[in-house]
């Protein structure tokens, strides 16, 4: 089954779930407000899942992401609320500091994996324990708040939206970029004589993706501020997720580093023989994951308008589940960033809808566990049939 077909199947399943939940909640599920909720609630796990895809594709695993999220989130909060003197530079310095810390700790873990020749499972299990302890030590377990007012903008709270005009501008830019890139790619394929898909099929696919983008913008603009008709537009954490997902997709498909990750995941020995520095790829993948943990930590603290030492508990498992739901193979070499984002949305859809229905948390956990199992089994079964 091709990656595109697979994405279509996932989308169809997601649409079914949305329609069923909408029916069960008497139309509340598909309101612009709840879709905005869903988008914001999926953003943290979505950001982590994008990085987790590359980690798993490179035949590794990262169990430390939840703890690293907690640690970097704690640091970004402590930097702006306690450690740095208050000035115009406080906020950017805090954000950059957290991102650098994430990158450094990620690279450190990657180095143990690549040069210390330890299994990633062990290294990141150590990270899971150590970073959670470090998060605790930052403030002796205290909750750090209040944070700077502008920090909350990144969390999609009452002001954390870009407004109707900017939403349309961004949507239009997205559509223009997509159409431009696709047309250029097609022209190039024709020029060098590579077979292309029939024009109507290509146009239809492009048109539906563009329609999807514009529909998303329209829905986000239909959600207004309370007691007014001022459109909120796209929430900032969702923009961050989109930027991360687009950035990593490009990285994975069109850069040397991305292709090396997939080559190493396909066969490390073969990759080594063709001259790829397998170790450097490992360090790079973990460093990237570390940066994304910091991004997720920043979004989490912005959403809570505080930092708590338990932030991100179990986020590593949600990120792995989202990646796997999105078609990433735990054997390595196969996976897509877009699929992982879809996986994160599927998981959050279940949780979001079931809380609307008032279902208790133990029942929700059972249900989400069951869906994960069935979805991955079904995927495997379909793939085996397609290969036969």
């Amino acid at each position, binding site marked *: 089954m091709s990656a595109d077909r697979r994405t279509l199947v996932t989308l169809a399943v997601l649409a079914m779930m949305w329609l069923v939940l909408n029916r069960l909640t008497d139309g509340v599920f598909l309101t612009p407000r709840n879709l905005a909720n869903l988008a914001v609630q999926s953003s943290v796990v979505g950001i982590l899942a994008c990085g987790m895809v590359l980690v798993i594709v490179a035949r590794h695993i990262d169990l430390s992401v939840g703890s690293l999220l907690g640690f970097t989130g704690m640091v970004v909060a402590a930097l702006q609320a306690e450690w740095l003197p208050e000035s115009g530079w406080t906020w950017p310095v805090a954000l950059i500091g957290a991102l650098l810390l994430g990158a450094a700790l990620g690279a450190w873990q990657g180095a143990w994996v690549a040069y210390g020749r330890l299994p990633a499972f062990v290294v990141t299990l150590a990270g899971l324990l150590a970073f959670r302890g470090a998060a605790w030590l930052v403030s002796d377990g205290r909750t*750090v708040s209040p944070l700077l007012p502008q920090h909350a903008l990144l969390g*999609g709270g009452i002001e*954390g939206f870009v407004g109707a005009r900017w939403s349309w501008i961004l949507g239009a830019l997205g559509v223009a970029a997509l159409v431009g890139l696709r047309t250029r790619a097609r022209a190039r394929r024709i020029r060098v004589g590579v077979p292309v898909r029939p024009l109507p099929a290509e146009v239809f696919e492009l048109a539906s993706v563009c329609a999807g983008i514009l529909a998303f913008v329209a829905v986000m603009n239909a959600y207004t501020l309370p*007691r007014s008709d001022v459109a909120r537009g796209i929430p900032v954490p969702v923009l961050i997720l989109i930027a991360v997902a687009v950035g990593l997709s490009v990285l994975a498909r069109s850069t040397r580093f991305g292709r090396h990750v997939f080559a190493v995941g396909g066969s490390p020995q073969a990759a080594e023989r063709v001259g790829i520095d397998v170790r450097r790829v490992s360090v790079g993948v973990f460093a990237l994951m570390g940066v994304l943990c910091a991004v997720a930590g920043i979004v989490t603290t912005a959403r809570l308008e*505080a930092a*708590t030492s338990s932030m991100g508990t179990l986020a590593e498992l949600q990120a792995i589940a989202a990646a796997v739901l999105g078609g990433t193979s735990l054997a390595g070499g196969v996976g897509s960033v877009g699929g992982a984002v879809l996986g994160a949305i599927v998981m959050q859809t279940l949780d979001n809808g079931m809380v609307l229905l*008032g279902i208790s948390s133990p029942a929700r956990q059972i249900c989400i566990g069951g869906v994960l199992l069935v979805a991955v089994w079904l995927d495997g079964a379909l793939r085996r049939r397609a290969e036969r």
Partner: protein
Amino acid sequence: MRWTALAAALLLWLAPAARGDELRVGVSWSNFQEERWKTDEAALREALSRRGARYLSTDAQSSTEKQLADVESLVVRGVDALVIVAQDAHAIGPAVALARAEGIPVVAYDRLVEAPGVFYLSFDNREVGRVQARTIHALRPRGRYVFIKGAAQDPNSDFVHAGQLDVLQPAIDRGDIQVVGDQFVDGWLPDVAQRVMEQILTAAGNGVDAVVCSNDAMAGAVIAALRAQGLTDVPVSGQDGDKAALNRVARGLQAVSVWKDSRALGERAAEVATALARGTRPDAVPGRIAFAGGPRGATVDAILLEPTPVTRDNLHVVLEAGWIERGALCRGTRRDPPPACEPSEAMP
């Protein structure tokens, strides 16, 4: 010659020191990693020394097995009374039995141990829930209520919620209060509480008048979710006296944080432990009740302390207790300061 003197000194030093007749109280802590136990320890230690008792302590570092060995070593060191913060209420059983066999009285500190001969000393968790509900109910006698409870697996979640219902059930039955949301939160995690609250608000179309939330960390997340909808006048409860939560109370964002003054608990523990060590019968300890509210329903001697509701009007209690510094409490309250943060008080 010199060697003989040295050897004699060594022998003297090695000979067991004569034991004074001071009382020795052994304390087995479960885990010093958590911030609050340091406050407890300081209070307990100080109260013991004031009573002329010696303080011996061990830290089990969250290990059930280590705690068994810790208690054994305290017994060997000849303590007259034991105070135990049980890492695991059931697994501590053999250690308690060992101490009881030696005739050493055992005080279960903060966490219940349902074993014969144990004296249970804690805050009344059910009362915590009652205090939360009472404060919120006074602010919103009728309307649409949401309950944000702790982890479903934690018996404390049930104690607290039972207390909340003690107060609110009559109003719910009369129809004065409609419950529009009632959810457990996995692991008491704030990020989960925030998502749950967002969904409850969505389902209710923002029709929420009050939130009875079981602890402070989740209350912060609930308040963030409310603010994202522009709802600033919905009272929210909490517990623990978290510093961030007390600051929210000062800024008028959170209605109440139910505070358990661990210094009071430490003081009482020292009092009870020394009394029992001096031979007072457990049922003769002042303030003692028979407690049978544990999961197994066994009856133990107990003292349950009343928690303190901290609201905007009585914030000075946490200041005076040294629980929080004025700067941390009053940050961001310049525009509308609560009584405890008024500038006049800062002037000497």
